[in-house]
């Protein structure tokens, strides 16, 4: 061809700033940890760090699912309610089958499968209403937010649904146990995040999720089955909620109308603090993981100190969230 077109080298200029921007949430987390340690040196104790990681696991696992939904351009407000409903239903199911199957692992397995089925079905319903029903995701999941929690409230008659004690004992290691020295929830969280990252970045499906979030029109022109991919993101979200619930149930062995309250906001916040744009198109799982850890570190830090009036806890959280977002603003 003609030599008239220059070879344009992709100059690495300004990429340092870019990278710093990308690392914003991580920097935020590190700074926060330094601050927390300064305020109370027990912050860095292994026991406390595992506590933080374990608590972050619930929101974190849910947020991994939310990352997919948000990257594809959707939103799911119902995750907290779905967690509550799943927890309640699963407990009722396990209590029921424990009569015939006993209080062993069979019953627990039945419960786990039930959780996954419920999560997947709820996600599928969301996906169908959004794609076939052509209703805004915000509306659909705002609706089911009410519906799921109401059904749980009805099932529990407003009180709590408790797992039979003997089943709870069998189930307990799923939350309280340790593998390789780490709490099970932390391991599961890590696995879910790795799998999520793999799916998002290394599979066709993940690529399509990003393409759809970037431009649905383009994706459709590229003959991608947009409805199916979108529906699947909600199913993934449902499955993530189910996994979180499976870890949650053995913790307190009960579900009540206040289970999972406002988890949706925390999950979405984790995703966005992690650098995924709310309007979709691109994002990253590791950012979400950092986001979840960061949110939990703030709470932990506030519980470990007394310097701020308890009334102002929420203010500190708010300020930290805004500051972290400010750190990584460069890249937009």
């Amino acid at each position, binding site marked *: 061809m003609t030599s008239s077109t220059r070879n344009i080298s992709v100059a690495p200029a300004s990429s340092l700033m870019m990278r710093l921007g990308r690392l914003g949430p991580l920097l935020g987390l590190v700074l926060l940890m330094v601050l927390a340690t300064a305020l*109370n040196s*027990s912050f860095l*104790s292994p*026991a*406390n760090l595992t*506590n933080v990681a374990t*608590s972050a696991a619930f929101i974190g696992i849910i947020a991994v699912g939310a990352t997919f939904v948000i990257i594809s351009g959707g939103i799911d407000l119902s995750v907290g309610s779905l967690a509550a409903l799943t927890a309640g239903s699963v407990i009722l199911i396990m209590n029921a089958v424990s009569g015939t199957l006993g209080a062993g692992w069979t019953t627990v397995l039945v419960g786990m499968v039930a959780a996954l089925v419920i999560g997947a079905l709820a996600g599928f319903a969301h996906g169908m209403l959004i794609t076939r029903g052509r209703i805004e995701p915000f509306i659909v999941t705002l609706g089911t937010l009410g519906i799921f929690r109401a059904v749980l*409230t009805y099932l*529990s*008659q*407003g*009180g*709590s649904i*408790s797992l039979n004690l003997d089943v709870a004992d069998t189930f307990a290691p799923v939350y*309280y146990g340790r593998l390789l020295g780490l709490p099970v929830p932390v391991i599961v969280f890590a696995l879910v995040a790795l799998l999520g990252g793999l799916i998002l970045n290394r599979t066709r499906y993940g690529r399509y999720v990003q393409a759809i979030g970037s431009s649905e029109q383009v994706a459709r022109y590229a003959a991608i089955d947009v409805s199916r991919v979108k529906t699947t993101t909600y199913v993934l979200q449902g499955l993530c909620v189910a996994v979180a619930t499976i870890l949650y149930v053995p*913790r*307190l062995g*009960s579900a*009540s*109308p*206040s*289970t999972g*309250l406002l988890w949706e906001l925390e999950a979405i916040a984790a995703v966005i603090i992690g650098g995924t744009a709310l309007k979709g198109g691109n994002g990253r799982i590791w950012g979400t993981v950092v986001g979840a850890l960061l949110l939990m570190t703030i*709470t*932990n830090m506030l*519980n*470990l100190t*007394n310097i701020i009036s*308890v*009334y102002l*806890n929420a203010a500190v959280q708010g300020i930290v969230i805004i500051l972290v977002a400010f750190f990584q603003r460069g890249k937009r």
Partner: protein
Amino acid sequence: QTKTIIGVSIPAADHGWTAGVVYHANEAKKMVERMYPGTQVIVKTAKDANEQANQIQDMLTVNKINTLVILPQESAPLTAPVAALKRQGVYTVVVDRGLTNPAAQDAYVAGDNRSFGKVAAQYMGKQLGGKGNVVVLRGIPTVVDNQRVESFEAAMKAQYPGVKILDKKFGNWNRDDAFKVMQDYLTRFPKIDAVWAADDDMAVGVLKAIQQAGRKDIRVVLGGGGMKEMIKKVMDGSDKLVTANVTYPPSMIADAIMLAAKNRTAGKALPRSTIIPSVLVSKSNAQKFYFPQSPF
């Protein structure tokens, strides 16, 4: 003779105690409608003060209630709306959380938040032998919570100055939040003698957190409100941390409804004020406070 129509407005069942309220209100409705034929009871729940204010207005306009039994979400914001109903001829019975302007209520049936805190402090101080470290989990920032915590602290300071309150954080009357707060307390304080969880839902989370950490220093976990599982523990003595409870019975709503029905159908006024004091539940009297049918 006009028919008695009683409107009951209560908070939505969003945690154990309010669930108990909803349960007892519905039980009372059944009983009243059986005992006083022709009397109608309408039970409605509201998720916040604003909705409750709308709700009681709706009840008057549409259901034509002439008696209102209300357990306000909050005292101050519902004072004006209840007063408005009273002006329009509705007989108003306020339960648990007294209005800021007492003139707005014809009758008041209530638990006693101050005695709730005081009884708890006295029991705990005694158990600890007047010395030790206590952590406190408060509820949601409300007047109710303030009264309980203030009187707890006051009683403790007055009677057991040797007991030290290490910190008090909000657990939002929620098991999960209480679990997390307790975990962090356990990290932060190497020696804790007793936990005042102020609510049985929170006590559940506290117990799990202690169990997980395997800490042996804690001797007392005191909840409150009379959740059936907790009462059962006290009754059976199955958990050595849980040896007592402090009542704050959600069934007070039923008492108020029954009182209202009895007096209103007879055309009489209720006593201005009926206080149901908080009492200590221990192994000896636990049976009396055990309602296995209630969700709470």
